[in-house]
């Protein structure tokens, strides 16, 4: 019995993955149908509000998967993944900003509004190229990836581990937050980038675009999940777990631990960046608040709540917590932090393997 269950986990398309993909596809299809074909006002109609909300959750889910990959399987507790998410978001935001063109409030064909506003005379060099979608998309991958690569290259090579690593990832996102707050940086300061109009020629406010973005996010989540699944099931994935559990042992049997960490960390950062890029057009704003270290801690908590080292757990955790947040903030505006804080404490104390771990155990007990 045990052997079979364990062997099953080694398949890329194991049962959990199959059901995850099935549910994701079903939700995507259902939402599209209910949004497009069921008339507004009908009880089954899925409003665009819900579509966007779901899209946002799926972005968070992808972000959580990326954190789970490094934390769950590699043992790196990154308290700075929010930074990669935000960088991806900024790259997309810059593209969307350039798309506004001369439709900004000042009607300047080249400069975004906030630059006109602060008397900038010309476009800073790093804004060039972002009017092209392919370039922006490249940057979505390149910027977080490169940062993660350089940061990881230094940190892993000098064997910074454990809490030290966690704290310097936190320092990284904190420093970036401070930097992006500065108006001189040319990223819109505290207000960030907003007032987007269209993406690749599609009106961002139209229902169809929103649905399209939602479907893209679902697709990205599906692909990202499968990529992670592939890594986890490969020998590299097993090396990663070995690094997590006994780092020096792994080194003694000849694995370059720093390189393993570096590549998985970089890949994870890229995934986070993609999640950020999909997030921005759906919520309509990116600002330095996304770099806030507290956000990065929250991501880790989603993973913990869902269940560490199970990719689907990260998805469940992200959706669950954010759904709770959406509901509680409308429902118990004065007391929702009690509820949220309580959940975190409860889960760590009583569900060490997260919600999915708990459900799996229940299921095993029944079987």
């Amino acid at each position, binding site marked *: 019995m*045990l*052997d079979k269950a*364990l*062997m099953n986990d080694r398949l890329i398309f194991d049962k959990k993955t199959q059901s995850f993909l099935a549910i994701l596809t079903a939700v995507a299809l259902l939402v599209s149908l209910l949004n497009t074909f069921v008339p507004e006002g009908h009880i089954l109609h899925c409003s665009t509000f819900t579509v966007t909300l779901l899209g946002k959750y799926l972005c968070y889910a992808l972000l959580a998967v990326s954190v789970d990959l490094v934390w769950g399987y590699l043992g790196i507790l990154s308290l700075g993944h929010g930074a990669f998410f935000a960088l991806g978001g900024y790259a997309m935001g810059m593209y969307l900003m350039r798309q506004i063109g001369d439709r900004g409030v000042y009607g300047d064909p080249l400069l975004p509004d906030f630059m006109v506003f602060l008397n900038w005379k010309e476009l800073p060099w790093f804004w060039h190229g972002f009017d092209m979608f392919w370039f922006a998309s490249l940057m979505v991958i390149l910027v977080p990836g490169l940062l993660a690569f350089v940061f990881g290259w230094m940190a892993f090579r000098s064997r910074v581990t454990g809490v030290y690593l966690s704290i310097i990832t936190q320092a990284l996102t904190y420093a970036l937050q401070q930097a992006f707050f500065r108006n001189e940086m040319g990223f819109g300061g505290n207000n960030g980038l907003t007032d987007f109009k269209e993406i690749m020629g599609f009106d961002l406010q139209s229902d169809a675009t929103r649905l399209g973005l939602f479907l893209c996010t679902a697709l990205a989540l599906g692909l990202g999940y499968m990529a992670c699944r592939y*890594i986890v099931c*490969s*020998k*590299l994935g*097993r*090396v990663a*777990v*070995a690094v997590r*559990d*006994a780092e*020096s*042992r*792994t*080194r*003694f*049997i*000849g*694995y*370059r*631990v720093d*390189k*393993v960490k570096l*590549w998985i960390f970089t890949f994870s950062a890229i995934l986070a960046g993609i999640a950020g890029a999909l997030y921005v057009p759906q919520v309509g704003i990116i600002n330095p608040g996304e770099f806030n270290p507290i956000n990065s801690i929250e991501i880790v908590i989603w993973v913990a709540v869902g269940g560490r080292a199970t990719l689907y757990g990260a998805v469940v955790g992200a959706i669950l917590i954010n759904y709770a947040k959406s509901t509680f903030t409308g429902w118990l505006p004065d007391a929702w932090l009690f509820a949220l804080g309580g959940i975190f404490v409860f889960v760590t104390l009583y569900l060490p393997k997260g919600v999915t771990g708990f459900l799996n155990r229940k299921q095993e007990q029944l079987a």
Partner: protein
Amino acid sequence: MSAMNFIEQIRQRDRVFDFIQPQASSRLDVSHGNILYLEDISVSFDGFKAINNLNLYIKEGELRCIIGPNGAGKTTMMDIITGKTRPDTGSAWFGSRINLLELDEPEIAEAGIGRKFQKPTVFENHLVVDNLELAMAGNKSVITSLFARLSAAQKERIDEVLETIGLKDNKYRLAGSLSHGQKQWLEIGMLLMQNPKLLLVDEPVAGMTHQEMDRTAELLKSLAGQHSVVVVEHDMDFVRSIANHVTVLHQGSVLAEGTMDQVQSNPKVVEVYLGE
């Protein structure tokens, strides 16, 4: 710099690229008979001299036992050989060409030194078979690992080792669920998979039953010859059963060397062991 080297390599047609060359111990030169040279090694932690002017030579194919009271520096010595600790002074050579002090742990492992820890460290969240697969000699780069598939020969090799260490029935069990003795065996199995030239074995029989101990002794003896084996052990009976050559460490340097009988009759050794 490295780019220049690379171009240089491409121009020399008779040379094989480094990454195609069969790795592991290809550079190992044991023509002088010794596989390990430790010379004048000293290391201290917070003023405490863990190793003090240590000189040790291991011959190729030899089975050497190292004994010594607690704090004699046995584990620290292994740490130095495997690159975990850097000595303050002294030199450490693997064969006569490989300077161990210039390499880090994976490079040393790649060069052909395998190590079994005092406390059994296996990958507890992996299956037994995975543990062996991970330890298997071969290209261990990131990309290779990402696309690695086991060949039939490799599978065969794993089964062979499983047979040797007596864990054939536990192939698909989680390593973490093994008994203490089984973990010891698994770790030895992993060493075998690594196929090193030099094995460093730290207290291999702690927690084993007598039968298991005998089997371990047999295994280690059979390894000597093709491999060089260094065993650190407290259990004198076990040491007596395997070793023909014993080194006694005390306060970080070699106190005595010779056969078990010679060593046991050495007055200094007696004093160290009994005088305390």
